[in-house]
């Protein structure tokens, strides 16, 4: 199969697939479980062929029940396995909320370290794919407040491999978010050997000195494109790809803000109470006198979700043009 001889250039689906495949091959404690991950090979074909190679006991087509997908995985993790659970679409993670927030995140704490919960929960999230109300939500802000959880949301193939490896190795529960629009859209070089990227480190994807832009997921790609446009106009913008949402990389953000003195946060998720709120609050607390302009957030509008109709989806999503405009405005502030 393709993943047996990995090519250097992959899209995001292939990066997830390649990393999962290696994990299953190299560590027999690992397994994947979720809806339609077996014969169907996951709805995006991420685990296609796995069941034939690793067997139905390690590639588990679960009943349609998210609380038990996560809850059973927790029990496996407590009993020494390294489960990688899948929620078919992030929109369907709500029934598992109790198991994630009430249980996985507190296992180590409540037992004072007697039990641990080395669990990965992967799920595709995000819009721009005509997913309508229930196949396009962002969920990170519903979880990032929760001590005991880690959350990553890489969106470059090489970051996906490094962070998914780190998540699988991690002794604590990690929510691994994959922006589904980037699945086939984004391609990049992926080193063939095994490597990890530490959870919690952001990455400057486009250096600059007149404005700091912090983003993650699909929008990082658009932000980079916008920054490149502005570079053509002689405006220098630094784009930071958060990659990890909890823990989050204060050092990289503050270093950049201390250089540029301006901050724009861009995310697809609704603005009110979103990830950007904490970033803005942290910077307003720690680097207040470094700022030459108000901190601006360019985010999803505060409505429940994008609709199915194209104009509703487009209105919800922030376009690259809008990003470029906001950047220009702030640079010139």
């Amino acid at each position, binding site marked *: 199969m393709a993943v047996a001889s990995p090519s250097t250039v992959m899209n995001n689906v292939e990066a997830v697939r390649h990393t999962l495949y290696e994990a299953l091959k190299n560590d027999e404690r690992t397994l994947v479980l979720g809806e339609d991950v077996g014969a169907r090979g996951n709805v995006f074909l991420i685990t296609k062929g796995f069941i034939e190679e690793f067997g139905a006991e390690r590639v588990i087509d679960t009943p*349609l029940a998210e609380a038990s997908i996560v809850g059973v995985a927790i029990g496996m993790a407590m009993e020494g396995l390294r489960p990688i659970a899948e929620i078919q679409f992030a929109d369907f993670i709500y029934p598992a909320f109790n198991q994630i927030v009430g249980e996985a995140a507190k296992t180590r704490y409540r037992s004072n370290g007697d039990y641990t919960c080395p669990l990965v929960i992967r799920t595709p999230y995000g819009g721009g794919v005509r997913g309508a109300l229930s196949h396009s939500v962002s969920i990170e802000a519903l979880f990032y407040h929760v001590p005991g959880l880690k959350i990553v949301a890489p969106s470059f193939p090489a970051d996906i491999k490094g962070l998914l490896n780190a998540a699988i190795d991690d002794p604590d529960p990690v929510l691994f978010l994959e922006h589904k629009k980037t699945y086939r859209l984004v391609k990049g070089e992926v080193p063939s050997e095994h490597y990890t990227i530490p959870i919690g480190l952001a990455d400057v994807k486009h250096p600059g000195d007149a404005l700091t832009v912090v983003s993650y997921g699909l929008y990082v790609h658009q932000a980079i494109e916008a920054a490149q446009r502005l570079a053509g106009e002689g405006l220098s913008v630094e784009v930071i790809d958060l990659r990890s949402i909890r823990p989050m990389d204060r050092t990289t953000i503050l270093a950049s803000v201390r250089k540029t003195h301006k901050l724009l946060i861009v995310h697809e998720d609704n603005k009110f109470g979103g990830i950007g709120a904490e970033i803005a609050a942290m910077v307003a607390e720690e680097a207040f006198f470094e700022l030459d302009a108000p901190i601006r957030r360019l985010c999803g509008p505060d409505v429940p979700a994008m609709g199915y109709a194209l104009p509703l989806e487009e209105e919800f999503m922030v376009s690259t043009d809008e990003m470029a405009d906001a950047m220009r405005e702030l640079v010139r502030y």
Partner: protein
Amino acid sequence: MAEAITKPALERHGLDEEQLRWMLRNMLLQRTLDNRGFQLNRQGKIPFATGSEGHEGIHAGSALAFARGRDVLVPYYRDIGLCIGIGMEPLQVLLAMFARAADISGGRQFPNHFTGRAIGLMSISSIIAAHLPHAVGAAYAMKLRGESGRAVLASFGDGATSEGEWHESMNFAAVHALPIVFLCENNEWAISTPRDRQMKVRDVVEKADGYGMRGEIVDGSDPIAVYGVMNGALERARSGGGPTLVEAKCYRFLSHTTDDDDRTYRTREEIERHRHLDPVPRFERVLVEAGVITSDDVSAMKREILAHVNDVTDRAEALPYPLASDLYTNVYEGTHEPWL
């Protein structure tokens, strides 16, 4: 089907010829709408479609048992025929496919997530089984207000029975002896997951006893049988006899949706083995053989349906999308800023 088909046998549940023909028409209409959805998707005109192929008998029989103006339907996303059968306009199916502003959800929902308060059609999300507690709550309201003669019909797939919320709904309804019928359309598959990976029992109906609820099983490819069971269950619910779990057996002939390719998980042979269960040709043949309708009339019916579906397709396609500004309405009553 070996015995001779006679009108009295067909009319055993008190159905008259007109009702029998009504069910056939409903089933043919579903099939035509299904085909239209997949066709429009292949043509690149709509991003997504799904169909009820194989479920038509369940929908026709259940819809006929539904008391318009009194009962409430809390449907599944596969229930095109059931929704049309209780009074929704076929145009709505196309409006939803095209995500037009005139769609009842205003182009917000995925296709097949219908709503229609005026006809007793309750709004659902895409989250499997999450609609079932709502159905129970609606039934509770009916009982609390002493509205006998009303009942709730809640439908779902075999896959949905695995969810915790399914369990809680069954239990709550049983404890309070509510006027509700739970209709499981068991088509043997939840996307690619076959029944035996979902549950250890053979029949979903085996789950009823554990709730102290009455359970009934019916051949979903026979709309008359479905009508009989559903009518009995709904009547019982309406008259204070409490809830019933009805399992209607069927088979999903199409891929799960246009996004799915069922070749990855089931053989063509399996599908063909089930072909004899296809309720549409089967019911057509039954009615013709019993003399309820002539072949010519069936052909005329099909032409009329196709013309109608063509017409609503054209009308729906010609209508506009919602406006970008429509994204911001109906978050709450009135304004919706999180910051006042």
